[in-house]
């Protein structure tokens, strides 16, 4: 199982997230320093999330800053870009050799997604695009979150055939308030998603969660901010 790390950024700074609002972020330092730290700690991969609220504030400048930060950090690890990204902007970044793949959420809930997916895969390769399922336990029911419409969707109504066409699926848990305690969600969706395609993210911040995830034979886990707090983490 690969062990990666996830960073939330505005292109220049890294933040720790405490909810789905910009004002709930905590500053973590410059993006470059954080990227260097992850490279040094020998993680297998990095996912960089550039939330829509940053892009809408700064326009395409956030992407340009992100590109510069990545280039100046000499990151030698594979990078996945996530966070409400559009095809045009991602293509721009990919063409400039900054990232390896993108992680999409909104597309999963839109019409004609399969055709667009096939087009992107045809152009950039099958591994270029991964699905980003944002998952939350709401009133005792597991739901998927559609970022473009800001709506929760019942997991039974989701198009799993579309999901199956993706190379990997990032299951990103939100509202964990700390670390993932149990893997109950997996009982609910294990028949619908192949375990070896799953990248577990959100609330992954200790050894116990990693070893539990390993038992399920997931493709990867993405450590959250805790990855930066401790340099002994890669020993795990």
């Amino acid at each position, binding site marked *: 199982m690969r062990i990666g790390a996830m960073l939330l950024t505005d292109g220049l700074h890294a933040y720790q997230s405490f909810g789905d609002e*910009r004002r709930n972020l905590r*500053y973590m330092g410059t993006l470059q320093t*954080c990227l*260097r*730290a992850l490279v*040094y700690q*020998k993680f297998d991969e990095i996912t960089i999330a550039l939330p829509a609220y940053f892009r809408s504030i700064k326009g395409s400048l956030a992407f340009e800053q992100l590109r510069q930060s990545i280039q100046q950090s000499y990151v030698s690890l594979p990078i996945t870009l996530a966070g409400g990204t559009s095809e045009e902007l991602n293509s721009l970044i990919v063409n400039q050799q900054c990232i390896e793949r993108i992680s999409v959420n909104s597309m999963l809930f839109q019409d004609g997604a399969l055709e667009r997916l096939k087009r992107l895969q045809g152009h950039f390769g099958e591994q270029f695009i991964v699905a980003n399922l944002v998952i939350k336990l709401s009133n005792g029911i597991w739901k998927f979150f559609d970022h473009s419409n800001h709506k929760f969707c019942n997991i039974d109504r989701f198009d799993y055939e579309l999901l199956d066409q993706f190379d990997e699926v990032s299951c990103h848990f939100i509202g964990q308030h700390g670390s993932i305690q149990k893997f109950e969600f997996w009982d609910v969706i294990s028949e619908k998603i192949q375990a070896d395609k799953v990248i577990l993210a959100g609330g992954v911040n200790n050894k116990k969660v990693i070893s539990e995830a390993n038992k399920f034979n997931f493709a990867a886990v993405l450590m959250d901010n805790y990855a930066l707090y401790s*340099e002994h983490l*890669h020993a795990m």
Partner: protein
Amino acid sequence: MQCKECGLGLHPYLPTATQDLQCPFCQSVLENIDKNYSGLLQEVIEKIKNNSNTGGYHCVVPLRGDAEDYYVVDLLIKNNLNPIVTFCNSYFLNDIGWHNIHNLITTFDVDSRIFNPNLSRYREFVSHTIRRIMDPKLPIRMLSYRFAYETAEQNNIPYIIYGTCAPAYYTGKFPANAQLRLSRWWTEQHDMSGSTLDEIINSGAQLSHHDVSNYLFPDGQVTKKIQGLFLSNYMKWRHLENNLLALNHGFLPQSQTGTFDYLENSGCSIHYNLHDLLRIKKFGNGKGNDHSRILVAYYNDNADYCNSYGDIVKNTQLFFKKFLESTQSGFEWYYENKLKSTIERCKHNSRPLNEAQNFPDWLKKSLELAVTPSEQYILFKKGI
């Protein structure tokens, strides 16, 4: 921009990009006040206790010579731990600082390791960091980290214990309960403002590869085995109250003009002088302001204790003459071109520290016992 909760502005160390976020300092204070720390410290102490090495040392405690060292060592010893203390000579201590270091080692009867860096190379690095990043204390901080890790590695000790996790406590950059640990990222982000030591050194320091090795943060093989923990992440941390404990053990507080906190960094000739001045120049914020924020936020006290900067020029001149061994014209050039405008701004904005101001009663003891150093920048002094 002021926070509605705490009434304070965002800490100047935070970038402007964070100005529309929630006040992180305020959040950090609330987290510290609300969090149930019950058993957390004890859990950490048990973990350290169960990892003792063959030499019997449980942890390394790096010293600076200030009151917090007394609190940390006292707390560890009270919990039946056997720390070994390390101290890197910064060559910045005055007679009070040397007394406090020697007194700690004697009073608590702890084993110690002391490192005196090569003075001429250290001096070169200090003058370089003043020029390039306006931080004369970066070299000693890096030396201190390195020496603590080396001592831990040589003695097979898995923990290094620090007191305050400064970014969480003073600026709220991190949640109070984030349990941060000392790491390379930490030093690059907090000590070097996002640069690497390589970048700083390669920007003109006349240091050889061999000289530099003492300042580098230990590599992954070492940090994998040794964890740097901050006690303030495991308990309700109140540094002003904690530090008062040192007075019971013969610690000498130092009269300051830059802050009302006479306990923190007592005995350091440069801390509230050139070091603080350069911090004001860079961030517009001196250490005295940080202490005032703490008093407002954690003690709900009026912290309008303004500072005067009258002695800074004299002390800085002494630093140039005695420590850097610079010429008078060198000092004058630096003063005219780098410091003058900041000093004038400070003087304009400051009022003398008035003894009649109503300090909290529990803090008064530290003010009453405070002494004035008789000699600054003592390179070495024998102990008790």
